[in-house]
């Protein structure tokens, strides 16, 4: 039986051959992508500034504090605040209580605020911190998510003014934002960069606090400008003859609320400034929209791109006939599609501004010329490392029949790693190339373990170092009480191979777990390094090395 014929019946060897073939196809089909540090471009590392906190506070105390009220009372869905003197409803609206009504009495004013306890806490914090605050119902007890830089102390100080506090305990105050906010921020960045027609941009999230942006073909100054600058938002109204007229710009939009479902219809409520509301009313009347709302579409644009268009709502048209309206709602549709549209519109209405305060914590640019030079240097380094390893192995075994399979196996491990990388569409950066070279170094070590274990068998025979491999293999086979060829299938062979694999599995496991933390540190810059090493160890241990064990056993056993 020839070597090839015999080996091709082995499951492990077959698996290995198929894996290598697939890897080569994958590399050819998908191609390898290189990271920023090899291709050139710029990157930004953003920290999302936010925290989540449980808050103990009474909404009545907040209202008392905000209005200098004489009394606050909760009645059904409303809070009723008695304030000395005459106060307009505008005061309450400015504090964020949209829809508040004021009724002047003799020497005091009764303000009715339609709000829940939580929304009062949110309004208070938003006003004080000048940042968005959201309620996170997904955890119990609920947490307020504060989308700016706060510490436990600074937040406690703010709450102390209204007799509130953050409860004791680690869980009551957590740095970082929720996954939802993280995703929203990523979406805003994605949509903004796409709108600007910038291609090859990768926005990645790292942990719960960091976002990385890689931009090919932009220098770091441009990158910073793009991320920092809000988009240009405009509302236009359809006039006669299918033309449109300007109504207002983004500066007139004072607040944008999270999407809201009303009778199964999703919408995004937003508030206009006083001037904005007046401009809206004037434009609607001038265009004739208040008389015939169905024929007058209200359209919104972000960076000249239409993001919303719908006829003026009849109820709004009739109320605009009488007075300006500050609170409006853009309705988009029903069901999941409506929810999705509402979410995007919410992002766009904010002019592409990020939902959370971000701080650029690191940035940089890599020149394309330097990158391609590093690529070349790394390929040279890899080849020289492989040669050095081959030289070392030859020095030890003096046997081409061992060195060649060993180096081929090691090289094929690299091919498999690259195949997976290509299929996954991951980028190879400088660190992951270094990782590949490390895998070559450790991979050959495992092959050495297998070879030695098979060669020496049951006992440590020091003197055998001087004998040729053939002799040793033959001796081992004889000891096992079987013929030469049968050595590869004998029990002794299997037990030696499995002993080698106990060592290899232990070594592979320690290398992998030691690399795990790197997946989460260094803002993703070493993720590639860690991932490719873990991948290489897994592919090597479970595909390449079992096959190598078979092949080398055959080579040592057959001739």
């Amino acid at each position, binding site marked *: 039986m020839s070597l090839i014929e015999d080996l091709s019946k082995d499951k492990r060897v077959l698996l290995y051959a198929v894996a290598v073939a697939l890897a080569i196809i994958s590399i050819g089909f998908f191609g390898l992508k290189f990271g920023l540090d090899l291709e050139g471009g710029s990157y930004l590392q953003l920290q999302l500034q936010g925290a989540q906190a449980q808050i103990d506070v009474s909404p009545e105390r907040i209202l008392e504090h905000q209005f200098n009220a004489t009394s606050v009372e909760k009645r059904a869905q409303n809070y009723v605040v008695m304030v000395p003197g005459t106060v307009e409803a505008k005061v309450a609206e400015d504090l964020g209580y949209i829809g508040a009504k004021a009724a002047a009495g003799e020497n005091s004013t009764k303000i009715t605020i339609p709000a829940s306890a939580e929304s009062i806490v949110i309004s208070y914090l938003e006003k004080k911190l000048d940042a968005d605050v959201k309620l996170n119902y997904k955890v119990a007890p609920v947490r307020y998510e504060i989308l700016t830089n706060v510490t436990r102390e600074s937040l406690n100080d703010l709450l102390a003014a209204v007799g509130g506090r953050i409860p004791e305990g680690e869980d009551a105050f957590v740095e970082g934002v929720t996954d939802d906010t993280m995703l929203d921020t990523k979406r805003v960045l994605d949509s903004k960069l796409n709108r600007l027609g910038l291609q090859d941009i990768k926005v990645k999230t790292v942990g719960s606090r960091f976002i990385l942006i890689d931009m090919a073909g932009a220098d770091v100054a441009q990158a910073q400008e793009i991320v920092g600058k809000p988009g240009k938002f405009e509302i236009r109204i359809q006039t006669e003859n299918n033309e449109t007229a300007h109504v207002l710009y983004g500066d007139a939009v004072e607040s944008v609320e999270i999407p809201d479902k009303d009778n199964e219809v999703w919408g995004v409520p937003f508030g206009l400034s006083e001037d904005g509301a007046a401009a809206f009313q004037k434009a609607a009347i001038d265009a004739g929209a208040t008389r015939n709302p169905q024929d007058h579409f209200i359209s919104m644009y972000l960076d000249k791109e239409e993001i919303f268009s719908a006829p003026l709502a009849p109820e709004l048209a009739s109320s605009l006939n009488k007075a300006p309206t500050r609170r409006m709602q853009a309705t988009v549709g029903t069901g999941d599609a409506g929810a999705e549209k509402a979410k995007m519109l919410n992002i766009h209405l904010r002019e592409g501004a990020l939902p959370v305060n971000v701080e650029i914590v690191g940035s940089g640019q890599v020149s394309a010329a330097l990158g391609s030079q590093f690529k070349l240097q790394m390929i040279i380094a890899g080849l020289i490392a492989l040669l050095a390893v081959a030289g070392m192995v030859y020095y030890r075994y003096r046997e081409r029949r061992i060195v060649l399979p060993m180096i081929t196996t090691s090289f094929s491990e690299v091919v498999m790693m690259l195949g997976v990388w290509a299929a996954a569409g991951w980028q190879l950066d400088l660190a992951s190339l270094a990782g590949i070279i490390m895998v070559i170094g450790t991979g050959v070590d495992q092959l050495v373990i297998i070879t030695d274990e098979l060669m020496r068998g049951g006992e440590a025979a020091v003197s055998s170092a001087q004998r040729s491999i053939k002799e040793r293999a033959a001796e081992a086979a004889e000891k096992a009480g079987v013929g030469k060829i049968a050595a590869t299938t004998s029990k002794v062979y299997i037990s030696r191979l499995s002993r080698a694999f*106990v060592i290899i599995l232990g070594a592979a496991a320690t290398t992998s777990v030691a690399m795990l933390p*790197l997946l989460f540190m260094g*803002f993703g810059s070493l993720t590639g390094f860690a991932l490719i090493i873990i991948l290489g160890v897994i592919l090597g241990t479970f595909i390449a090395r079992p096959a190598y064990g078979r092949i080398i056993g055959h080579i040592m056993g057959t001739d």
Partner: protein
Amino acid sequence: MELEDIISKYPPRQIMLVPIAVVILALISLGVTYVSTGSPVKLGIEFTGGTLITVPGIGSEESVAAEFADYPVQDVRDIGNRYMLQFGPMSDSEYSQLVKLANDRFESPDIRHMGPIYSKELQSQVARYLPLSFIFMAIVVFVVFRQFMVSALVVLCALADILIAAASMNLTGVELSLGTVAALLMLIGYSVDTDILLSMRVLKRKGDVDEKIIGAMQTGLTMAGTTIAAVIALIIISNFLYLIVPSFTRMDIIADMTMVLIFGLAADVFNTWVTNAQGLRWYLGRSKKAARGQKR
């Protein structure tokens, strides 16, 4: 063979004094650096914050430095074909201007900026994850062997490797960077490979302990030899090739990583075949005595 002498000539306790002395020396080096700088190894720019700019090496170092005279230049280095300038911390607006200046005056500058939040976060990450990595490794070792003393020896040897590698950073002036952290983590994983091999061979095979150690040593030294050969190749490529081939540039991340690895690997050879091997001899010798009468 000389190696055999080292393994079996002296009683284990006596030889163990050598590694203990080396580890103490390493601890002293780390301790001295800790007292004088506040961290056991010198922190690189990624951990202290600042800006690195490399520009094509046209003109003299002085003339390039003069271009950036308005900014806090800390260091200028020739890295073969390019100059590397290191800047201290600066404000965001200063940094923006610096970026513009570099892009205006030089062809394809390479810029890396690490703000204070970045470097602080990175410091705390390393302090958190490096021990975590070590603990994971230790757990795996204990699961593999399920024998306290044997596992403890392996883990202690790995610890000694890391300490010696870290101390050698102080001696050679290699600073802690993301690359060197990666190398230290790599060492945590790598250094136990040969220890596992040694312990497995000694525990699972029949025969004389000393002979088993020497047998394992052959395999282990080949393993170390291949890895060290690969690392030396990388050291030459990343550190020195640019001196020979003028168009090449020094690759910092690889240079730092390999420097740490070469010391770590050297320490590993020593710790595996002296510390761990002698530890096993001592431990097995003791248990033999305890289980009197057992054939040696």
